[in-house]
């Protein structure tokens, strides 16, 4: 649609989680604030509002983006996926399920951003995009073959999402689970790695 404009606001369409929303947005409004304050999609979190923490990560046209750094008015017609679009409590996405089972969070505030980022990251890797941790020999003949996601690769590719609770080792495990077997939606409950030693 052609945006309806005033000096300070525009009406535009955002396709969020496959639903078209006509919204009138203040030109100063970020995509994050439109999601949270106008569409009541509060799964995307505001941790820093400056692109430093990743809690607001969404998929914009399938790619990871910090929604706090995007002015909504510049994204008329865009397709956005938030954590709410990945799955719900009855039918969670395999990565949401893996985060739950691996206890890959504590306070949960960075979690939606981590999960959306993880989904985007797995797509990037599947498409053969290298990272800083990708071995040099793999870069020389980039053919679009999927990147092998060892732990160093996952850590590097997930470092745009800060977790102050320190759940990183479990986040890596959750991503390994899904990277190894992305098709398996329902997963058996796992025992944690902690063990006890009688005194």
């Amino acid at each position: 649609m052609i945006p309806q404009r005033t000096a300070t606001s525009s009406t535009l369409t955002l396709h969020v989680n496959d639903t078209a929303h006509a919204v009138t947005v203040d030109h100063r409004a970020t995509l994050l604030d439109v999601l949270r304050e106008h569409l009541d999609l509060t799964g995307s979190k505001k941790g820093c509002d400056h692109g430093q923490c990743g809690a607001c990560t969404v998929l914009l046209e399938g790619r990871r983006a910090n929604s706090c750094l995007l002015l909504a008015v510049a994204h008329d017609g865009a397709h956005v996926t938030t954590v709410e679009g990945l799955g719900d409590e009855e039918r969670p996405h395999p990565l949401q399920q893996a985060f739950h089972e691996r206890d890959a969070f504590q306070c949960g505030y960075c979690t939606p951003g981590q999960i959306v980022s993880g989904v985007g990251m797995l797509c990037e890797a599947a498409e053969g995009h290298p990272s800083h941790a990708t071995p040099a020999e793999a870069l020389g003949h980039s053919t679009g073959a999927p990147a092998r996601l060892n732990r160093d690769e996952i850590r590097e590719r997930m470092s745009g999402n800060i977790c102050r609770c320190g759940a990183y080792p479990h986040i890596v495990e959750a991503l390994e689970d899904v990277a190894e077997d992305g098709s398996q939606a329902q997963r058996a409950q796992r025992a944690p790695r902690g063990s006890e030693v009688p005194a």
Partner: protein
Amino acid sequence: MAVTETTEGVLGAPALRREGRAKVTGTARYATEHTPPACAYGWPVAATVAHGRVTGIEDGEALAIPGALAVLTHENAPRLVEPDDPTLFLLQNDRVPHRGWYVALAVAETLEAAREMARTVRVGYDEEPHDVLVAADHPDLYHPEWANGGYPGDQHSGDFESAYAAAPHQLDATYGITPLHNHPMEPHASTALWEAGHLIAYDSSQGASTVCQVLAAMFDIEEKQVTVVAEHVGGGFGSKGTPRPPVVLAAMGAQHTGRPVKLALPRREMPAVVGHRAPTVQRLRLGARDDGTLTALQHDVATHTSTIKEFVEQAAVPSRVMYGADGIRTGHRVVRLDVPTPSWMRAPGEAPGMYALECAMDELSFSLGLDPVELRLRNIPETEPESGKPFSSHHLADCLREGARRFGWERRDPRPAARREGDLLLGTGVAASTYPVIVAPSTASVQSMGDGTYHVRVNATDIGTGARTVLAQVAAQELGVALDAVRIDVGSSDLPQAPLAGGSSGTASWGWAVHKACRELRESDGSIVTVDTTSDVEAQEDYARHAFGAIFAEVSADTVTGEVRVRRMLGVFAAGRILNARTARSQFIGGMTMGLGMALTEHSSLDARLGGFVQKDLASYHVPANADVPDIDAHWIEEHDPHLNPVGGKGIGEIGIVGSPAAIANAVHHATGRRLRDLPLTPDRVGVLG
């Protein structure tokens, strides 16, 4: 020692987090994710001078912005009853005690308008000189009567000076730690509304009962006229232990405008108004015999506080607990500066204090030519050194031995700077960890629903610890029912009153009350029981109660860049009964990760000229990212302590950060041969190693 899997039964089982599905799917709502009808938005205005008075506020331009509702200042804001905590006495006078202090509040129809209003409010100041830098020889340092936690500021036993002078081996070393910031991922935030004289606040807090009490007192209303909800809280690490400015500002804004007001702190403003770990300069003097046993121990701490509130980081306190000596002298000196008010940050006292003490022990072991694990084993006291009280349980030795076994410590070559891998030097280090057992009175209720299910109600707060889950496990175990037969409500001041989630005391305090309520219900004929544990807590026997642990770390140091990276970390803890293996492990490794940040990346400083913190956001204050954190492993000793609360846990939220910085710093010395005593060990400090 045989390694066993997790204990049988409901308690101790690795139950999944009850709110886990809601958190991973984004439906868990935090403080500003409630939007009442006609909700307005608040944006605070921070002082741009470090010391002085507000001489005038021009809000005409701000109020002309479309959507503007009000600008609150000390001239027009609702009058508050002065609270015990001076950091909450906001917009009540013209005083500016530090840069970043809030001097006004903009309220508007939209977030965008409120933000622009705050930017256009013009504040005039009468500026006065400021002083923000602490040093061990600052002339205004004084000895406080008390340090945080209710500990005496200074304490001594025996004759330190004589013992130290006579010691055949002496160590005198000074360690420095910069200010540190909690930076929970959810900023401090509130949504407040008034309904017919009743104040409702959704607040990001570690304890809604305290917030309720403080708000009622400040707004001069009954506690029953205040409801504070903290259902999901995005971390706190101490900085949300008591009310912080957002809830007061939101409540004032809502009262002034007659509209609900939502207010989340901008990340860059948090360091100035939510508390921080105060910097410390810590001098350690150790005297030892040839066999390594300590004869003398002195721990002197110099730190800062603000001009409006005395908060003394109790960093010398762990030296009253860890090791015995003939003469022990521990003390704090503090100076009131024009700085933001420090407060609790995960393991206040223990985290910085054990960094200094455990590095000093490592230095001593090196000069004695004694293995650092062995040195600690030789110095474990029979009773708590300062108090002489018996320990309720003490398994530091088991933690050290089990950790050494798991880590492969016996293969360690003690020589420093002796392992090279290309440009990297490799090393390993160890440190002990400790945290006191704290428990506070709590109430709780449990109701039999008549269909085999039970409803537990307690105003516990789940800041990410898994409190909901663990308390349901406590109830299910005591009631003898399956976990899913227990419904539990936490996180509202309308529930039975309970203490805050802090001091690693939550599960012990709330769990005691839940346990008692379930037991009384089981033994009664009724269908609902409400209990209070005040008398139980007061009746506790007089023991020294502490959790202990041992941390091991392996690091690499880049000889070209000076970059230190942790390769692996192991923590072994003795913290009483572990109530949920899954969530406990997360807390241990989470604490250790924050300790890694304290050792290597987290650095703040005060600007001598401008007077505020320099590193205010997450781009300049570096908390560990995923790529900084290697495989961290946590294990625990099964510890049966009959002198604890009936649930049997000692508290696990903070002990992971304690000891971790020292283990890493000691590993850096082992790798490089350089003893760097000031944290963090950033490349510029480590330097080119050649």
